[in-house]
């Protein structure tokens, strides 16, 4: 429908050329002025679109200019690539619209950029006063722009030139760069500026080849834009260019070094619940970073530790998990899934470490001693207790020492003592979380605890589970054992401070 018009405009300016040449020869010199104007136009263009201007060489028939003009799509648009045979049908159908789209399988993700047009042209000595530039080559990278439309594009560009223009290059670049070209050639399915859901349709021999090329170009273009944009890092409060920053899955941007320090310190402390976006909203929502983000931000060694901690955390949620007793291994071994008849048979005590393949008893954590024999630790325990019950210098003590070896007995006694002290200390100075059993020692603050591991709320005084919605009820209900015991002040501590200030100030 637009073809006849376009054809005529394509022909018209070129027909005029001899006439213009005549004008020039008549006037003799406008050439100097033209040369100055060309120089100026090039400088202006270079300052506005530095990346577009590739080269500018003086030649016998005028300046040869090469431009590389990327196409920006704003907002992002999907591109549908149609094979030619479908498109023939498409063009013939008078309605020009989309039932052929349904048949076409290849549509890109929304793109913000298309590969550049390559435009080579010669500025004759009489340009811009009398002659239009002569286009010597016009193509698109990856030939995404349909070859059947190149002629129309030539015509459109030629039609934009008028003899009184101060220079046409900027208008051409803008026309291609802004994507207006797609509207003018009816490649866009609706008015782009008004409708966000519009689609660009282009014809290509091989949609499946072009699609990845367009998408990867878009990704590169977006990376380049990101790298050049400045972002204020909310952690160090300094602005950084995007290439020094990381954009997380939640779209928040931080400078790489801050984020790496932050996550690195969390990983070092084993606090992997905090390895996530530091934005307060993301922190409140408890979003943790995914593996993609973590790998991008921290060192390989830290990634390894982070993964290990994550696996460990997952395993520790299993209350039956036991660490492999082999000193250098310590791999968490999950509890086995048992069939009913196995339960209670003694086999439920068997664990096999997935890393070092040692088999051990879940109860005594020693080498597997079969489902029937009693755990040997109990034997050692009673034997050490017997030994300790005897007074020093007792003959029976010497007997035991002779029998088992003095050094062996000493070692066992030492271990027994250590374990006893450990147990005593744990009982005296810590409280076990009723959710996961981990022991917690309170350094400061109130008796309402939230387990860092399993998020269970509990009372540090009595170990009771507290409802997360109203944990303080436990301390505020008269009659309960912990009523008004939210704080354990050392006796008199609170009162002392009270009185001190009272009297001190009067």
């Amino acid at each position, binding site marked *: 429908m637009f073809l006849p018009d376009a054809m005529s405009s394509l022909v018209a300016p070129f027909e005029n050329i001899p006439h213009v040449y005549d004008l020039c020869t008549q006037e003799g010199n406008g050439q100097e002025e033209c040369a100055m104007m060309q120089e100026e136009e090039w400088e202006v263009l270079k300052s506005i679109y530095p990346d577009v201007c590739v080269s500018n060489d003086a030649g016998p028939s005028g300046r040869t200019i090469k431009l590389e003009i990327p196409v920006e799509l704003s907002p992002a648009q999907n591109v549908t690539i149609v094979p030619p045979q479908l498109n023939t049908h498409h063009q013939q159908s008078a309605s020009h619209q989309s039932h052929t789209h349904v048949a076409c399988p290849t549509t890109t993700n929304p793109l913000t950029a298309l590969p550049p047009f390559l435009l080579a042209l010669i500025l004759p000595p009489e340009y811009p006063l009398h002659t239009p530039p002569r286009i010597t080559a016009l193509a698109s990278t990856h030939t995404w722009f349909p070859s059947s439309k190149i002629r129309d594009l030539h015509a459109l560009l030629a039609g934009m030139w008028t003899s009184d223009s101060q220079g046409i290059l900027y208008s051409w670049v803008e026309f291609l760069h802004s994507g207006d070209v797609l509207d003018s050639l009816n490649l866009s399915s609706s008015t782009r500026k008004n409708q966000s859901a519009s689609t660009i349709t282009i014809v290509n021999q091989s949609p499946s080849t072009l699609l990845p090329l367009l998408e990867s170009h878009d990704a590169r273009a977006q990376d380049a834009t990101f790298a050049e944009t400045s972002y204020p890092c*909310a952690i160090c*409060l300094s602005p950084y260019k995007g290439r020094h920053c990381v954009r997380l899955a939640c779209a928040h941007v931080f400078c790489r070094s*801050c984020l790496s320090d932050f996550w690195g310190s*969390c990983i070092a402390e084993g606090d992997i619940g905090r390895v996530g976006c530091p934005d*307060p909203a993301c922190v409140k929502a408890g979003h943790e970073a995914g593996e993609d983000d973590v790998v991008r931000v921290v060192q390989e060694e830290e990634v390894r530790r982070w993964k290990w901690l994550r696996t460990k955390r997952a395993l520790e949620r299993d209350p039956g998990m036991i660490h492999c007793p082999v000193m250098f291994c310590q791999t968490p071994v999950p509890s086995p899934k048992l069939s009913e008849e196995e339960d209670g048979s003694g086999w439920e005590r068997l664990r096999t470490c997935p890393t070092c393949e040692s088999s051990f008893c879940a109860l005594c954590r020693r080498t597997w001693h079969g489902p029937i024999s009693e755990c040997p630790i109990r034997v050692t325990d009673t034997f050490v207790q017997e030994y300790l019950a005897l007074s020093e210098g007792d003959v029976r003590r010497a007997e035991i020492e002779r029998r088992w070896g003095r050094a062996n007995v000493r070692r066992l006694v030492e271990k027994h003592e250590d374990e006893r002290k450990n147990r005593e200390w744990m009982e005296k100075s810590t409280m076990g979380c009723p959710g996961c059993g981990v022991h917690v020692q309170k350094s400061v603050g109130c008796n309402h605890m939230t387990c860092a591991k399993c998020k269970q709320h509990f009372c540090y005084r009595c170990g009771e589970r507290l409802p997360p919605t109203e944990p303080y009820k436990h301390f*505020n209900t008269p009659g309960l054992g912990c009523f008004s015991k*939210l704080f354990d002040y050392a006796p008199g501590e609170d009162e002392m401070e009270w009185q001190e200030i009272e009297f001190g100030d009067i």
Partner: protein
Amino acid sequence: MDARLRRVNKEIADCKNDKSSNIKIELVDASPFHLKGSFPGPQDTPYEGGHFEVDIVIPDSYPFQPVKMKFITKVYHPNISSASGAICLDILKDAWSPVLTLKSTLISLQSLLCSPEPNDPQDAEVAKHYTTSKRSFDETARYWTQIYAGGPAVKKMEVKEPQKDEIAIAGLEKAHVDQFEGLGFERSKVIDVLRRLNYRGANVANIAEDRIVEELLK
């Protein structure tokens, strides 16, 4: 210059340049990691007119670990310890994020004064007072603001007593204290016991006099 120092310097400068927020941060000694923040009490609260000072200690791993803050000025508030000034606020603990700054944290403290959370108390006694009788609580909080934070004089108590009124500080009624003092107990002990038992407002009816005497005899 390490990242922590750079950030703290920036934060202090930023606070100095911002005249609109009323938040002040100043050095306490030569160290940039021990600071004093201050802000005016929020309007339409018992803290209005007061000037509140906060002790700020910046830990080595700041901003990855939360800043340590406590009130220097004594505050009568359910989430602030009346004895030590310790603060119960989630962002100073597990909800901390390195994106939060000294200024934004001080603003959070200021808004904590606007909206007490008696179900998450740092000071259980004050929280009890708050839930028993909001009006009596407000009076006490206003009195504390006046005597500790330089707030405007409370009308009811006037300025006829130049020295601090212990009874008002504890949020109690003079008549109640006089009653038990009349039985021969030391005044400061009476105040202490009545305060601990929350002998205020409607709660007075719930506490038998015997119970108080029992406590006084302990």
